């Protein structure tokens, strides 16, 4: 066996793979082979490092050098300079945006310093396609401990005491959920993993499945032992091909090792897991809809009770948990309930994974202790707003959540504080908006999503949301009235109160929370027919300030519809009838002469 002196980890998450990280690994391997170093340096495709903004990421150990924005062509340089000569490649190091200095080690970056990784403990550390690496990091130890030394009730008690709550959004206590499912009599029960991550901009669950699939498989088996199930199902959307591939490999390897299947570790406990593909409908993240979809029916929710714990998949008692919830379980069993409960706030224990996206410098995947302030996440970990613009709002919880503003920045991130502030934890999408984003348009964006994704079963959601969307469209076109604002609020409340499931029940949240926090912006749209952020096309006009324009013709040449005319070195003019308000001229102008009003 090769005795490796160095390990080179290449990010194999979906994001970095899109930027050719496969090629980087391939080039690294061939450069190493060329120099006769194949037996000395191991190249590993790992899961997501989280720092997607600067992907693809390559990390060299044990030197602990962290390379960002690596291109396939850089592979030879890394091998020849760093690996052979021991000189870190300067131009691939991360530049600290504050001090301007090069940072060699990831743990010295602001992005990683405030993070605490439990669910992501192995992401970006192990090769997810190699069960040996997972086992070396304690995978299946918790399952072994549970099967040989604990009764199901003891395990449930640990999970209850740990304070773990569902990471899918609603935050139901996981231990209690298991206990209910365990008490329902039945000789055939099911453990379901909800991997139907549907929020726009969210990729937490995908990254866990891609980076550390065994953590989820192990936890499902533990859950099976607790509730008395021998069959597990992972409901995953077909649009996650890499996660599916890695899950398949992980399940196959676990079966070969005897960690799934019959008589696991000689204890007589049987448990196996299969995959079930979803077509990517948002509503199927709702557990009753998910179960119907698994059964081959339409993905529509049904009224609860009966809860899945009593009557779930095929009418049998079923326990449904989200990917991230499961990923926490083995760590809790091994480190103890008290350890987990010591992290976080009074009612929200442990950590939460967030997918940071939007107008933020460090787009990526992060895991922070519950109770971390929004400000820390956005300014320190996220590195602040892109292009030095002003922070305007952050949207948490996807289409079901609400917008939080400047005044909420000191809100600790936990289930109850976020709900109190008018948003919700949700599954962990966090989208940041800056001053150039129009809140009415943002609310409409999310509502468009809900209208598209509504299953259409109940009237409030099917018809109500459509009407809400129409009113918003009217406002963004400058045809809205003040009465419309009252109507939005009223209708939104009715939809919330009367919808069948939480998709409808939470769909007006983006509208209601923007009405609450950005009423002025709505008023400007309906009263002055003006969009303060300059985003609503129907309400803005582009014109050139003759004082500022030097007649460089840059805008005229870039205009896709030839709406700009003027002589060289003389002020130009935009023909309002032709202008399509695309904003290209603003980008091209070096003299700030193009104004938007």
């Amino acid at each position, binding site marked *: 066996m090769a005795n490796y*002196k*160095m390990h080179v980890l290449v990010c194999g998450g979906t994001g970095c793979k899109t930027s050719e990280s496969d090629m980087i690994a391939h080039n690294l391997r061939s450069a190493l082979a060329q120099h006769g170093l194949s037996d000395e340096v191991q190249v590993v495709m790992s899961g997501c490092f989280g720092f997607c903004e600067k992907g693809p990421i390559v990390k060299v150990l*044990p030197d602990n050098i962290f390379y960002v924005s690596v291109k396939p062509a850089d592979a030879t340089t890394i091998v020849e300079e760093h690996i052979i*000569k021991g000189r870190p490649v300067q131009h691939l190091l991360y530049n600290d945006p504050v001090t301007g200095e090069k940072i060699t080690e990831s743990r010295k970056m602001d992005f990683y310093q405030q993070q605490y990784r439990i669910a992501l403990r192995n992401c970006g550390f192990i090769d997810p396609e190699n069960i040996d690496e997972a086992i*070396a990091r304690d995978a299946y*130890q918790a399952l072994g401990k549970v099967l040989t030394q604990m009764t199901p009730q003891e395990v449930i008690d640990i999970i209850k005491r740990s304070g773990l709550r569902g990471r899918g959004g609603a935050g139901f206590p996981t231990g209690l959920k298991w206990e209910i499912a365990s008490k329902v009599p039945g000789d055939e029960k099911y453990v379901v993993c909800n991997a139907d991550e549907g929020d726009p901009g969210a990729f937490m669950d995908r990254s866990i499945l891609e980076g550390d699939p065994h953590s989820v498989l192990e936890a499902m088996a533990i859950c099976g032992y607790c509730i008395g199930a021998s069959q597990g199902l992972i409901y995953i959307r077909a649009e996650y091909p890499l996660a599916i591939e890695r899950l398949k490999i992980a399940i196959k390897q676990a079966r*070969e*090792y005897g960690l799934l299947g019959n008589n696991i*570790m000689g204890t007589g406990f049987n448990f196996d897991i299969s995959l079930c593909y979803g077509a990517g409908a948002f509503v199927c993240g709702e557990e009753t809809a998910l179960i119907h979809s698994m059964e081959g029916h339409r993905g529509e929710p049904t009224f609860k009770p009966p809860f899945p714990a009593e009557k779930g998949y095929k009418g049998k008692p079923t326990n449904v948990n989200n990917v991230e919830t499961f990923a926490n379980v083995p760590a809790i069993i091994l480190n103890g309930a008290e350890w987990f409960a010591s992290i976080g706030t009074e009612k929200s224990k442990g950590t939460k994974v967030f997918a940071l996206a939007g107008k933020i410098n460090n787009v990526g995947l992060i895991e922070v202790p519950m109770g971390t302030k929004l400000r820390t996440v956005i300014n320190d970990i996220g590195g602040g707003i892109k292009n030095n613009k002003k922070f305007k709002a952050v949207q948490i919880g996807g289409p079901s959540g609400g917008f939080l503003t400047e005044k909420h920045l000191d809100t600790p991130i936990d289930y109850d504080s976020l709900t109190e502030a008018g948003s919700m934890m949700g599954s962990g999408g966090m989208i940041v908006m800056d001053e150039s984003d129009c809140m009415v348009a943002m609310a409409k964006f999310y509502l468009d999503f809900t209208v598209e994704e509504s299953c259409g079963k109940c009237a409030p959601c099917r018809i109500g949301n459509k009407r809400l969307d129409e009113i918003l469209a009217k406002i963004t076109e400058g045809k809205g009235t003040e009465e419309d604002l009252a109507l939005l609020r009223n209708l939104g409340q009715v939809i919330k109160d009367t919808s069948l499931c939480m998709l409808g029940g939470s769909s007006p949240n983006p509208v209601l929370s923007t009405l609450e926090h950005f009423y002025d912006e709505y008023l400007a749209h309906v009263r002055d027919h003006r969009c303060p952020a300059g985003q609503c096309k129907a309400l803005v006009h582009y014109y050139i300030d003759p004082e500022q324009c030097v007649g460089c013709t840059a805008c005229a040449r870039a205009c896709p519809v030839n709406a700009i005319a003027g002589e060289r070195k003389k002020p130009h003019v935009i023909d309002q009838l032709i202008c399509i308000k695309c904003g290209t001229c603003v980008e091209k102008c070096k003299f700030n002469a193009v104004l938007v009003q």
Partner: protein
Amino acid sequence: MTKVKTLDDLIRLRDELRTKLELREKGEHPEQLIQVKVAMATCGIASGAKEVMDYFIDELPKRNIAAVVTQTGCMGYCYAEPTIEVTLPGKEPVVFGYVNKEKADEIIEKYLKAGELVDGIIPQTFKKPN
């Protein structure tokens, strides 16, 4: 095919596999461990730095010393190659010259294990920015 038949099997397997990832675990906190840097520029390699590095990598685990062995570039002491730089936790780095396997053995036994200095230290004659 490895079949895990009992929990003990799994624990044994984990302990076996752990060494494969040790390098990565150590890399996360190098300052808590002994760090050995072997100068592996052309001059060093020509003088046998590669063999010395292999020797450290093979010997340290055998002698139960937790250390990180990495390579570095030319330190400028080409006359004294192979050179190595050893940093004990909390101490200033020390550079040794003319390190062959025998010298390496002596450094491991005396300096790494007991903190006792041995002959062959090259005094630091230059300053580095910060």
